[in-house]
């Protein structure tokens, strides 16, 4: 009886806001929800609508319904296909290198006895720079006339051409710029995971005679698997929409060597003003991002780490 009264009381208090079917909480949330809808849902549905139209900017914006033309064009466009292939190569190279280097550096820092915080602070510095500045810095260092790295490579005889102007080196250069900037993030995330590894279990394994590699494989790796997948997810989402560094360094060149899909999307939208087609490419990127995120979240759920 008491419970029933309490329930009724709660119900009454929820509807105190008066009149209609909405509770007080919902009424208070409504302005923010409307704002959210205006800011995110409207552009989302607008871009879907754009992808189904041929958009013209002559005499103001006008739409001509084109059905799935933009979508079929995207799947048959050789240039866009090549941009996707380069994006995949770039994605695998950056995320792979960042994960391997990030985990290795985190393991090294974790083992330090003195100066751990100082080393970590210095290693994290690139992460605090804006990607555009990293691109400009990369251009400054690799310039064939006055760049420091270009000079070192030239003098050591390792590479004598223009780094960003040569097909064989341009993509590698922009990949390394991204790796330089974002490996520290992986280091930070993995170090957080390493701090949570049970020290008693590690000590017990050491006493039982397990060597470093054994402890790494059977104790540390399973303990940090969750944070590693989170780091992988964060970096993957970012790598798919990588734009800034390439824009200020090569702008997709030389030729199309570094023209990955976000650069092609930008060109389609703001150089060719083919906005309907650009919308379809953008939505394609979104679908790819969602697929990648879903795979990682499923892995986390399967391991019971998604709580």
């Amino acid at each position, binding site marked *: 009886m008491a419970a029933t009264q309490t329930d009724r009381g709660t119900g009454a208090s929820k509807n105190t806001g008066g009149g209609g079917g909405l509770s007080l909480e919902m009424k208070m949330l409504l302005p923010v929800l409307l704002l959210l809808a205006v800011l995110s849902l409207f552009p989302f549905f607008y871009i879907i609508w754009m992808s189904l139209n041929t958009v013209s900017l002559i005499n103001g914006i006008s739409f001509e319904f084109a059905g799935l033309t933009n979508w079929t064009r995207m799947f048959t466009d050789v240039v866009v296909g090549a941009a996707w292939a380069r994006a995949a190569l770039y994605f695998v190279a950056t995320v792979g290198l960042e994960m391997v280097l990030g985990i290795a550096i985190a393991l090294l820092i974790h083992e330090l006895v003195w100066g751990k915080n100082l080393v970590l602070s*210095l*290693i994290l510095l690139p992460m605090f720079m804006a990607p555009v500045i990293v691109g400009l810095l990369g*251009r400054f260092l690799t310039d064939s006339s006055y760049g420091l790295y270009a000079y070192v490579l030239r003098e050591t005889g390792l590479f004598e051409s223009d780094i960003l102007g040569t097909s064989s080196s341009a993509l590698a250069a922009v990949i390394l710029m991204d790796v330089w900037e974002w490996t520290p993030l992986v280091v930070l995330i993995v170090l957080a995971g390493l701090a949570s590894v049970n020290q008693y279990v590690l000590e017990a394994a050491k006493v039982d005679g397990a060597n470093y590699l054994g402890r790494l494989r059977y104790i540390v790796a399973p303990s940090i698997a969750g944070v590693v997948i989170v780091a992988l997810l964060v970096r993957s989402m970012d790598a798919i929409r990588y734009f800034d560094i390439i824009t200020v360094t090569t702008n997709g060149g030389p030729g199309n060597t570094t023209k990955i899909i976000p650069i092609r999307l930008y060109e389609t939208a703001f150089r060719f003003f083919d906005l309907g087609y650009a919308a379809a490419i953008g939505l394609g990127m979104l679908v790819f991002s969602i697929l990648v995120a879903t795979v990682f979240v499923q892995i986390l759920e399967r391991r019971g780490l998604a709580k």
Partner: protein
Amino acid sequence: MTTSSKANFSGRGLGKQGVLYAILAVVLLWTLVPILWMVLSSFKPGTAQLSPTPVFFFAPTLQHYAALFTGGNAGLPRRLRAGEESLQGQATRGVLDHLDEDGPDSRGRPAALYPVSLR
């Protein structure tokens, strides 16, 4: 136990720490060289910045920081030109000079912004 762990740390443990620091020094070199080079270059006169061989010893200058606070730079190539004021810098200076000469009008509004003399 204490003696053994101390011995372990001063011998093999210390060696292991040395290797760790050596590897991390390489990592720090990779991380910090671009940033240090950027900081160093910000104090270099333009001729030293554009030198085909790296310049480590030079007479430091604050001209680029002065340019930053008086209109900024349009981009990297322009920034690298020694002692050259950017177009925005010139325009800003032109506007400021013009305002300074004419002063505000009777309603307290600034004097006309045009023409801007690009000297």
